[in-house]
């Protein structure tokens, strides 16, 4: 007797969000990227196809970072001195999106220049992160949003402290926002409510639920994402947004990736370990529903993209 496979039928679905505007759409990107649209849990193709597969973004910085692992210096080389070069190399390495992270040292003029040079160097959609201090973020992101009106870039990182300014400029200039909350379903919902209450349509918001690296709290991020996605499918409108995660940022902060010497022998080969750290952090988050996966090392990009291809293949 054939077994009847229990299938979930959900009342809700995830919204589709598009990043980047092509010339026809009022921007200059050679293509745009759409994520979201899921009607069931990740990759359960026996219930529904995956309408838009998760994409990989590569994180680059406006200035060569001095605190990144030397292993990353090895692969990106001199390109790290020039965001445009770096973005080009990232595109070659398979990025679907570029993340440009600004630093505290950037003036608004420098930041706008860096963004323009990256837009000029690649046709990929762009995400721009402020340096992570609410006031400074606002100082940099507002002029950038104005200078790139219509490009549909994503502005980050939009938190409870600074969402007003960033949302307002995203609304005025046709951009998307990256809404970050610290690993909590209710905080994520709350921020989405605040943002949409200002009048930004929900299909211009991507949630960043925050993640920890493998060994450093990934289990919290993993479960919060599973819970957010379940809530979305159950019909909770304020959780029905695609999710962005930053395993590259988190994993390369971990000692396992950063340091090659003076670590236990049982940790094995440094380079292989660092890549495993980033890839496995990413992979766990892919399983729990990530839509945009921000990475740093080209080898991890390749592995995660291969895995995603397999997961969406019928």
């Amino acid at each position, binding site marked *: 007797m054939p077994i009847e496979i229990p299938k979930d039928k959900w009342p809700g679905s995830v919204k589709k969000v598009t990043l980047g505007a092509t010339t026809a759409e009022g921007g200059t990107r050679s293509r745009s990227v759409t994520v979201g649209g899921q009607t069931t849990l990740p990759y359960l193709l026996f219930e529904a196809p995956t309408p838009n597969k998760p994409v990989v973004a590569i994180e680059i910085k406006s200035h060569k970072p001095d605190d990144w692992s030397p292993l990353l210096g090895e692969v990106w080389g001199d390109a790290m001195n020039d965001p445009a070069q770096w973005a080009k190399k990232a595109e070659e390495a398979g990025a679907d999106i570029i993340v440009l992270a600004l630093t505290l040292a950037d003036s608004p003029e420098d930041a706008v220049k860096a963004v323009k040079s990256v837009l000029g160097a690649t046709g990929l959609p762009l995400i721009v992160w402020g340096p992570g201090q609410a006031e400074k973020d606002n100082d940099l992101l507002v002029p950038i949003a104005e200078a790139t009106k219509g490009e549909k870039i994503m502005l980050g990182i939009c938190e409870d402290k600074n969402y007003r300014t960033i949302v307002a400029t995203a609304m005025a200039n046709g951009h998307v926002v990256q809404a970050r909350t*610290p690993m909590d379903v209710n905080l994520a919902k709350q921020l989405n409510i605040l943002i949409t209450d200002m009048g930004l349509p929900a299909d211009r918001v991507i949630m960043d639920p925050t993640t920890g690296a493998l060994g450093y709290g990934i289990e919290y991020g993993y479960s919060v994402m599973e819970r957010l996605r379940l809530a979305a499918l159950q019909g909770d409108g304020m959780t029905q947004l695609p999710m962005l995660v930053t395993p590259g940022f988190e994993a390369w902060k971990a000692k396992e990736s950063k340091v090659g010497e003076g670590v236990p022998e049982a940790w094995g080969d440094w380079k292989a370990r660092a890549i495993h750290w980033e890839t496995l952090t990413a992979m766990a988050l892919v399983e729990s529903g990530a839509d945009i996966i921000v990475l740093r090392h080209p080898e991890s990009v390749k592995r995660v993209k*291969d895995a995603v291809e397999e997961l969406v293949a019928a």
Partner: protein
Amino acid sequence: MALSGIQIYKMLPQTNCKECGFPTCLAFAMKLAAKQVELSACPYVSDASKKQLAESAAPPIRLVTLKAGTEVKAGNEVVMFRHEKTFYNKPGVFIRVKASDADAAKKVAAADAYKVNYVGMDFVIDGFAVEADGGDFVGAVKAVRDATKRPLILIAKDVALLDSALSLLAGESALIYSADASNYEAFADVAKKHKASLVVTGDSLDALADLTQKIQAKGVEDIVLDLGGKNLSEWLQRSTQARRLAIKSNFRALGYPVIFFAGQNGAAKEPVYAAQAISKYAGFVVLDTFTPELAYALLVLRENIYTDPQKPIQVQPGIYEINSPKPESPVLITTNFSITYFAVANEVEGSGLPAWLVVCDAEGMSVLTAWAAGKFDAERIAKAIKSFNVADKVSKKRVVLPGHVAVLSGELEAELPDWEIRVGPREAVDLPGFMKQALN
């Protein structure tokens, strides 16, 4: 499927004799259904009812235990998502070697000796799989058994070979691979003879369910499923379906742990395949590659996914002595979240520099989480310093705060007026450098 109180009541004597401590059999039945009492409290239940009740209480996924010098358990899971309760039995990580490989025993010995510490816990490889591939299988099993005391999985098509190899493993519970529709009778017999657990393979869940029932009818209960599937997608779907059928539909024929071979599509994909298997319901994960860096990453992932979401891993608050501190050694402050404690303790220990590490009760949270939650503030830190009598141990009243909570230094000065408050680096990696340069 768990029975309701009424269903249980029907199986009780219904005499309301009160010996169980409840006024009526129904009241007792309700408590039983809620798993708040043991059936043994009623002296009058019939054997038939006992059997039926025990069956209904059986876990939806059977617990399968492999045993040799050590033990590996799989199964007994009750939820689809870890946040619903927790995942219980961490998937056993096994390394596969081939009988024809002259270095098989050497490889096993190397992996067997592997041990890695993660936040105070030692992780090891759980066992080994030996595959018959034309070489001297029985000889290889013997050599592997000499190289490790851990449980074994034996992989062969020839039942006679398995029979001889299993004879070497008397007193153990091995796992044999694998029975399919064409050979299950002979495999079941040999499994039964040697008290081994048995993997079944089939190209659909229907086929597998059919087989497990037949094998059970032959008296083998400890079954493990190989769900097949050619890529990540198929595997994820099948393992989700099998888990759902077992847990949600109480479908006993698939209520068994699952085994997954992570190297099946090549070494390049193995890390990612194993990672998916760990998050998505495998009970045994077999690797073809053993490297310390991969083992470490996978064992940490497994630990993280199987951590009970209700209880962050914690250490006991208190004052910890690192590298035999003296009265003039520095006092460092941190929280009792295991990951935080070990990040700091390992750095300091590795540097060889002596220190007193004061671990505050921050309810098992990291520095910033605890700070944001109000569980790691000046008051709590001061309380820890006082209650652990830190002042009696040191000659220099100076404490070092984690750099991430530099904002606390003012308040802490007010709480501890006769102490010097210093702000350390943000990351523990930079502590040794800081201790050498800034603390003298």
